[in-house]
């Protein structure tokens, strides 16, 4: 792939912060770049993360080709910088820090379109209020399940992709990687409070995006029809 050649030159200018320890309080131990032993070590740590890295990259870049390039570039940089990884610390957070930094430095500049929704100022409990307003709470004891079962993976992915970038990145790390607030803060090198506020606000925006998509795809119309489809 063309990125192999391009990324091969990255280690010379790779910012040290990209490869900085992700676990607070860890003691830096300088290690050589991966020779046979290092290759075996990263060969055990990295492959299990590739599927989730690609899924994350898809939501960050919103483009399959860019997602492949992003994962490959991050993997190459991780191999080259593996000497800075501290054994016993959080390799997943360390690798995703490289991945998100690659995204911020390169792929965000492409400004891919994606769905543009007006999501600012989405109130709390948006979906709860909307589903109550259409009478869904009187139909079932579990209106959230009734709605979410009718939204498919593509539609939910589209709602995440509709979030503004700073909220989309945090939401992707939260939903796809199950990272804690602290781990996301370490990956993005931002305060935990910033993660918390972006995540909470992003989730409100996500609820509005889900509602808009459910309306556009006729899901709300079906749910409010005279004979609503039975619960699955």
């Amino acid at each position: 792939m063309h990125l192999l050649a391009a990324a091969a030159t990255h280690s010379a200018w790779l910012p040290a912060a990209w490869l900085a320890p992700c676990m607070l309080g860890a003691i830096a131990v300088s290690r050589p770049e991966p020779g046979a032993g290092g290759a075996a070590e990263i060969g055990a740590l990295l492959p299990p993360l590739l599927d989730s890295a690609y899924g994350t990259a898809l939501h960050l870049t919103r483009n399959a080709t860019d997602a492949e390039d992003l994962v490959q570039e991050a993997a190459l940089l991780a191999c080259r910088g593996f000497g800075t990884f501290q054994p016993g610390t959080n390799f997943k957070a360390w690798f995703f820090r490289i991945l998100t930094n690659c995204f911020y430095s390169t792929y965000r500049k492409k400004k891919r379109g994606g769905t543009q929704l007006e999501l600012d100022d989405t109130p709390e409990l948006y979906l709860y209020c909307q589903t109550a307003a259409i009478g869904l709470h009187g139909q079932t004891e579990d209106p959230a399940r009734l709605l979410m079962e009718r939204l498919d993976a593509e539609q939910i992915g589209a709602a995440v992709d509709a979030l503004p970038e700073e909220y989309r990145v945090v939401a992707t790390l939260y939903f796809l990687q199950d990272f804690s607030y602290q781990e996301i803060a370490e990956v993005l090198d931002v305060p935990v409070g910033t993660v918390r506020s972006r995540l909470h606000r992003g989730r409100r925006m996500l609820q509005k995006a889900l509602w808009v998509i459910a309306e556009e795809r006729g899901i709300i119309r079906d749910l409010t029809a005279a004979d609503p489809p039975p619960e699955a």
Partner: protein
Amino acid sequence: MHDHYRLTCEEVFARLDDFLDRELSEEETRRVEEHLAACAACASEHRFETGVLDGVRAKLTRIAVPTSLRAAILRQIAGGTA
């Protein structure tokens, strides 16, 4: 903190996101759970929010990395980075 102090609906609402994310302290978690056990309205909102989060988490696409890309990365690792 007084033993008899109970969180109000507003105080629970302010903690709901952190509670959903299991980011509250043990003590705060216990107090929110105590309120939810006694307040049907807050419990209903909590159940709904949990259902939405679980639905998103369960259905967000977890696509496998393309085989050719996985193979290329494994070759990178096996062959070193030169």
